[in-house]
């Protein structure tokens, strides 16, 4: 008794091994829904590989050119030049291929986030019940460290790029849902009524009035989702995602300062450029208000 109350360490008598049940659950899921998981896995892998293939098919100077043009269009010409130079720097570190792997996971996750997130954000404004479920879920998701998502992803999809995409998507999707919802909700009521008063259907009102009005807000959501995806991809190196994050991880394990520095700096560069360019796009899409 005394031992139970006063010892500094947690008593061994109180044990509850929950892990075994989770193991059962996963096995049960795999047994019954294995085909579904496989189909999802194959689908994601296919998209991912196509994107990566494409990124590697474009010649290196083509990528630099695109980045320059984006920087020029959405910021200014000096920004375009700077971004292109910075990406050139990543290539000169010998990390071009890793960068493309990282980018392809980010792009795949963002695309999935948009395809899933924007409709959810829209539906939430109409279906109160959906909102009651989704809102607290998003709150919970945003308080969780990204690290935690690795576990279910690995349990259900194993190691590699696919669970990385899934974990990244799940981690990065809240902002686009939230801001789509916010954007649609904030469209002036009178404007929506005006649309209805002319006999617009709900669809027409959505794509002729609400979506264009909400676009700047949705763009902000896309920017945030992209940035979160990038930060998560790095963490996903732990479950076997190739890319810049994996380089950092290896460098840490080997205490290889040179390699760590180069890959670390590359991630920072990527983050800055993606943020600046998407910010620029957001600003360009501001809707003039009354």
């Amino acid at each position, binding site marked *: 008794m005394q031992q139970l109350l006063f010892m500094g360490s947690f008593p061994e008598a109180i044990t509850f091994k929950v892990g075994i049940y989770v193991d059962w659950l996963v096995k049960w899921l795999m047994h019954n829904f294995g085909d579904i998981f496989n189909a999802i896995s194959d689908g994601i892998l296919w998209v991912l590989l196509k994107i990566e293939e494409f990124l590697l098919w474009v010649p290196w100077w083509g990528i630099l050119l695109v980045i320059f043009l984006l920087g020029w269009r959405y910021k200014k010409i000096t920004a375009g030049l700077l971004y292109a130079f910075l990406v050139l720097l990543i290539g000169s570190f010998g990390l071009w291929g890793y960068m493309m792997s990282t980018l392809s996971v980010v792009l795949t996750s963002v695309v999935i986030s948009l395809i899933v997130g924007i409709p959810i954000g829209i539906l939430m404004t109409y279906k109160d019940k959906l909102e009651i479920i989704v809102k607290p879920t998003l709150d919970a998701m945003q308080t969780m460290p990204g690290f935690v998502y690795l576990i279910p992803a690995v349990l259900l999809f194993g190691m590699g790029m696919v669970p990385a995409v899934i974990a990244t998507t799940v981690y990065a999707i809240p902002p686009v849902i939230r801001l789509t919802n916010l954007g649609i909700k904030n469209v002036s009521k009178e404007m929506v*009524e005006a649309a209805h*008063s*002319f006999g617009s259907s709900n669809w027409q009102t959505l794509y002729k*009035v609400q979506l*264009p*009005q909400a676009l700047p807000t949705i763009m902000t959501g896309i920017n945030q989702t992209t940035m979160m995806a990038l930060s998560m991809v790095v963490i996903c190196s732990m479950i076997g995602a190739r890319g810049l994050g994996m380089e950092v991880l290896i460098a840490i394990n080997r205490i290889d300062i040179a390699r760590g520095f180069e890959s670390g700096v590359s991630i920072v560069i990527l983050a800055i450029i993606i943020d600046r360019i998407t910010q620029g796009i957001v600003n360009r899409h501001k809707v*003039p208000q009354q």
Partner: protein
Amino acid sequence: MTVKVKVENLTKIFGRHPKATLKKLKGGLTKEEILKQTGHTVGINNVSFDVNDGEMFVIMGLSGSGKSTLIRCLNMLNVPTEGSIEVNGEDIVKYNKQELREFRQKKVAMVFQHFGLLTHRTVIRNVEYGLEIRGVPKEERYEKAKNMLATVGLEGWEDKYPSELSGGMQQRVGLARALANDPDILLMDEPFSALDPLIRRDMQLELLDIQAKLKKTIIFITHDVNEAFKLGDRVAVMKDGVIEQIGTPEEILANPVNEYIENFVQDVDKSKVVQAKHILFKPSALVSIKDGLKVAVKEMKTNGISSVFVVDSERKLRGLVTIDDTIKAMQDGKTLKDILIKDYFTTDPETYVQDLISKASSSKYPIAVVDETDKFMGIIMRVSVLSALT
């Protein structure tokens, strides 16, 4: 006159259980009691009225009296809790989704208090909106929208965004957008309230012009009694969701049915409502040019007046003679034609009394009212101008 819109026993209750609340309302509870007991708001309560084809029907009332609720029922932005709204004999409350969309696309258009313009679209694309929804081909709707913008005086502003326009211009866009659809019925919910007074006056006059040209049936909401009386062929006064009185501005001014309306019309600046035709009177003395001087003298003496208007056989106004001149002319052997005076004022019957004040105070003679063919209709005495203003 044909009835265009027939509203019967229309009630709208806001809240979760409008039908159940309706029973309580019918059971005799007041609006306040219902709000207290059930938390439901009675927007409008058992409202009935007709609007004639081509009429400008104004609904007036204080803020919160249910004006918006009522007008929004007329295109079903609000679904009434009970009652019927017949437009061209069809009850729009019974329409299904498709019928309602068609009705909104073709028969009715709304102008909003804060304009309700689509800020992400250019001016012309705003005006095109209704036509776009109807599926009118691009070229055609562009043409129509452009014409309509010209009608409201916004030529050359097609490619601007609403945010680049002043409030008055934005509401012109709102009006053009509504008219572009060529609706039978125009619903206007306090369209000029957000504009400053000078612009508001311009817009009111322009609306009257447009109305004279296009002959739409217009239902116009305002909380400004002067605006109501200036624009309305007939005016309905609302209070707490109920229509208290319906009538022409003159009827309401002359016979307010209760104290509420009396208080309301106290604010009326009558000079902007009362027109020459309302205060003219047909003088008992009138001389024809063919009559002799003797007749003229007799007319003036028996009526105790010192001057009289002279008309020709078609009742066209020829001039005025004074009693002194006439007696002198008889001695000098002149005729009536020789002594006609022209330095009196004339006015047409539509002129507002306000615009007669200066004429009335600077003339020795009554003002003659003549129609557009110069036909004599009557006279206005100085005193009647001044008394019409008080």
